[in-house]
């Protein structure tokens, strides 16, 4: 194989080379042995398959992946440190920005933690609204995953179908909260606004239509023969390994481990709702896709129940104007679209938290990637990475 080089460092004029220390121009990479056919392939931070600024350095043997070294931190903003210098209310919009696809689930986890610290009871209506919003958010997030995954697999049409349906949800969320992605809708004790008047009419319309659209998407992409051939038996991770990597959410459930925060660490009104937890058989890429499709169906069932039982009442509890929780610590977790979103909040009795630690599902799910990928082909790399549904700001925070 011909000697393939990165960049043009050797051809740069001496002055240009002199201005920057050579070591910082090219990051040293683990070198492949000279005798084999192995070579290094740098994927990202600018690559369409990484869905964000993520970088993996892959050691390839022809088209086969030998090893993979992930590099993260390109969008690290030091949010946890920032939290220590913000009041409890000021932190809420930051939680949106850890995962722009599930802002509501992040709001939910954080706000619930603060309420637990305060010992605040929220009205029943608020709980219903939260569940409604969280499930809508889950469907929107899964739809975006489906769209982006379709693109990864070379199918462009499901992308637009999924976006058509997602747009309806986003429009509903926008009308309620004023924001489309970073909604900043939750407040300690409730919501900033009540639901708009025609919310349920729109939701009913959506529920009536979406079941069919979902079947259509399922047939078009997930049940497609080419898709099944590319994902069945590819990127398998067993139950024990998945648990030991701390995987959660659809990625864990695909590996035949029925863990769902909504059922196993119950919160809000979920214990009173009836829904099933779809569990995959083999833990391969196809199972991860199937679990998400099924979860959307379950979310629809939850939405119907929450809509039927929706009570009258206030959209906000009587919370103190200045939030000063008593000293103590709390861990609050909810089931986000990607898995368990946890906030560990330590209060020292002032208006600002002493420490906030975020447990983010994408980080743990991503950590299993090298083990899943070893020995697969480069085309599988894209298929597997997409199936983990990574959101890079959530990995980096």
């Amino acid at each position, binding site marked *: 194989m011909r000697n*393939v*080089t990165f*960049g*043009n460092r050797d*051809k740069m004029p001496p002055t240009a080379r002199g201005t920057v220390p050579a070591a910082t121009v090219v990051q040293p990479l683990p070198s492949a042995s000279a005798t084999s056919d192995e*070579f290094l*392939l740098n994927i990202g931070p600018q*690559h*369409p*398959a990484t869905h964000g600024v993520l970088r993996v350095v892959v050691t390839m043997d022809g*088209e086969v992946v030998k090893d993979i070294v992930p590099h993260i931190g390109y969008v690290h903003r030091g949010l946890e440190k920032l939290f220590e210098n913000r009041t409890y209310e000021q932190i809420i919009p930051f939680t949106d920005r850890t995962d722009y696809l599930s802002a509501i689930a992040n709001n939910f986890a954080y706000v619930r933690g603060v309420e637990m610290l305060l010992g605040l009871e929220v009205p029943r209506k608020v709980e219903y609204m939260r569940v409604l919003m969280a499930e809508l958010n889950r469907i929107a997030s899964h739809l975006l995953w489906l769209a982006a995954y*379709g*693109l*990864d*697999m*070379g*199918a*462009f*049409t499901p*992308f*637009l*179908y999924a976006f*058509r349906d997602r747009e309806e949800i986003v429009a509903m969320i926008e009308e309620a909260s004023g924001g489309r992605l970073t909604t900043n809708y939750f407040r300690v004790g409730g919501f900033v606004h009540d639901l708009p008047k025609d919310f349920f009419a729109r939701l009913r319309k959506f529920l009536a239509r979406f079941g069919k659209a979902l079947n259509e998407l399922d047939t*078009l*992409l997930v049940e*497609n023969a*080419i*898709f099944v*051939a*590319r994902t069945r038996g590819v990127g398998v991770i067993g139950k024990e390994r998945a648990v030991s990597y701390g995987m959660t959410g659809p990625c864990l459930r695909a590996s035949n481990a029925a863990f769902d925060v909504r059922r196993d660490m119950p919160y809000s009104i979920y214990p009173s709702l009836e829904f099933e937890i779809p569990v995959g058989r083999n833990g391969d890429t196809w199972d991860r896709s199937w679990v998400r499709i099924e979860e959307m169906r379950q979310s629809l069932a939850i939405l119907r129940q929450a809509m039927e039982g929706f009570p009258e009442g206030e959209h906000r509890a009587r919370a103190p104007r200045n939030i000063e929780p008593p000293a103590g610590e709390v861990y609050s977790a909810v089931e986000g679209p990607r898995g368990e979103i946890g906030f560990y909040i330590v209060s020292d009795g002032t208006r600002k938290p002493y420490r906030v630690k975020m447990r983010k599902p994408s980080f743990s799910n991503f950590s299993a990637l090298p083990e899943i990928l070893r020995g697969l*082909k*480069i*085309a*599988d*790399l*894209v298929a597997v990475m997409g199936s983990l549904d990574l959101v890079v700001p959530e990995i980096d925070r």
Partner: protein
Amino acid sequence: MGHFLYDLFYRTDVLLDAWRTAAHQSWAMRGWPVVILDVLFQLGWAAAAAVFLAVNALFIIWFERKLAARIQIRRGPNRVGPWGILQTLADTGKMLIKEDIIPDAADRGVFKAAPLMVLASTFLLFVVLPFGRGLVPADLNVGLLYFLAIGGLSVIGILAGGWASNNKYSLMGGMRSAAQIVSYEVPAVLTVLSIALLAGSLKLGDIVRAQPAFGYILLQPVGFLLFLTASNAEINRGPFDLPESDSELVSGFVTEYSAMRFAIFFLAEYTNLFLAGAFAATLFLGGWRGPLLPPVAWFLIKSYFVVFLLIWIRWTFPRLRVDHLMAFSWKVLLPLALANLFITAVLVKVL
């Protein structure tokens, strides 16, 4: 006058023959070498093919974008010209004025030649393509072989482009493309062979005339599907677009190409799309033959119908994986093509 118009639309062969004979006679009378006239005639064909290539690309790119938009509940281009039909022209203008970037580490000569190699192989296919009665630059007696041989040439340009870019993604794209085109050439050849058996000739003009009114598609339904699949793979279009897969290889062999060099690849790709349709129409759908409408119209209608099928397929399916792609060719298409050829041969002998 009416006679002339009838000839112009329906008997182009008569018209062209008359014109050529008259020109020959007048040159011979003046004592000029007739060879030069023949060369001029061929240059005229080349110019006509070049014009068609450009116009067809303008149309077919717009057609694909509009059709894809319909499939995907969008509107597609609708700003430049009526129904956005001039969008491609605007894009071409943009491509022309963009900076032409050649990477430092690239093999400059090969890098520059690669797009032209691909376009040239595409352009050469027009030599044997019958657009209507007598509307063919040279109806070679080995037309079918010529089509297969030249059709496979584009792989050299693609491989050269991937190699010369000196980029790992491009190289992998080029190598995939080489493997893919070579493997799908085999079932294509075997399928086309059964057509040659039925027609008893390798000359495309004869093949068109030998077909029953409904074309060979009813006699060779499996052959048509095989040919459609194989040619779809040979022109690197979805679901066989692995050499330039966006999500893995970041456009594969065209990653490093920009401006006009990229546009030439693009032009060749869409001309290849048309040619795949045109040859499928010629070999299986009766070519330019058909009632009422002029032969050229029939030819274009049939060709663009096949193009429509290919576009429909592209925007419906996800992409295959590279090993599935190879397995599909060697384990599914090849045995089918062989069986098809065998049955055709037996039936031709018996009947």
